[in-house]
């Protein structure tokens, strides 16, 4: 009966990461069932090393200070929080093959699947978002 939120993350910048994980953690905290499908550059957001140092858009580097001043949690903190609240993280197998990545390159506790894995989750979602 609970709300189901399906998110596609296909971009790999810091702004993209905040959009994805803020919505995901807020939804999970509001008792929604949340699944995120990470594909193409979106895989950066769950890559073991890359998600610690995601780039700001070119010319927007000065926002780094704004994030700090506003006391915004880091992306690794948000990811951990999301996982703790049961957000399902699905990495796209096809993109991993293209980029020559394996499950070991990513954070713990993820699923790996193809497009249908996500579609199966998203088919009865109340909210579907793409970032």
């Amino acid at each position, binding site marked *: 009966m609970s709300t189901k939120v399906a998110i596609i993350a296909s971009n790999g910048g810091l702004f993209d990461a905040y959009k994805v994980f803020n919505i995901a953690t807020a939804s999970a905290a509001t008792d929604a069932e949340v699944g995120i499908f990470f594909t193409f550059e979106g895989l950066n957001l769950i890559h073991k090393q890359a998600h610690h140092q995601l780039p700001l858009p070119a010319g927007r580097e000065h926002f780094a200070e704004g994030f700090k001043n506003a*006391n915004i949690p880091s992306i690794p903190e948000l990811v951990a929080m999301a996982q703790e609240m049961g957000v399902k993280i699905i990495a796209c197998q096809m993109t991993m093959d293209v980029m020559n990545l394996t499950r070991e390159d990513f954070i713990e506790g993820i699923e790996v699947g193809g497009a249908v894995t996500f579609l199966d989750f998203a088919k009865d979602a109340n909210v579907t978002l793409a970032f």
Partner: protein
Amino acid sequence: MSTQIQANKTLDCKGLACPMPIVKTKKAMDQMHPGEVIEVQATDKGSLADIQGWAKNTGHQYLGTITEGEVLKHYLRKSSPDETKEEKKYPITVTTDELEQKLKAGDKTTVLDVREPAEYAFQRIPGAKSIPLSELENRLHELNPEDDIHVVCRTGNRSDMACQLLADKGFKNVKNVVSGISGWTGPVDRTH
């Protein structure tokens, strides 16, 4: 006269940005018992709308917010899964409209509000007497068993239990106001 807002738990979210106040509120609420009230202190201005949206979607009850300087104090009451459903076990009921007409006509009756003090502080029927359901049995001496008493809560569920308790204790003219404050369209008093 100022009524102190009582909370069972205070959660400090000052200095935290979205979505942290919501995430922390959810975690704190998971540890609480139904009926308990939490005070969430936040400086994130977006939390004012977020807390209300969160309460609406999780079924918990948003009571209100007090602003003190930069700090927003949000008050929420944890609901139990079955309380939003209205149950009518006590047979004598009146509607909120009937009660409003009666008060308007100046009929002598006691309006007994059995919600928590924090709920009472934010919105109540003018002149209503506050005795939370959990304290009712120990405070029966404050009421007269011969009086005409209208019992209200938020939805008519807690007041139903209060009516049954009062009837058991020999109160003769007790009525449950169905739909409670949530259905009340008449004038209200508030402390904050």
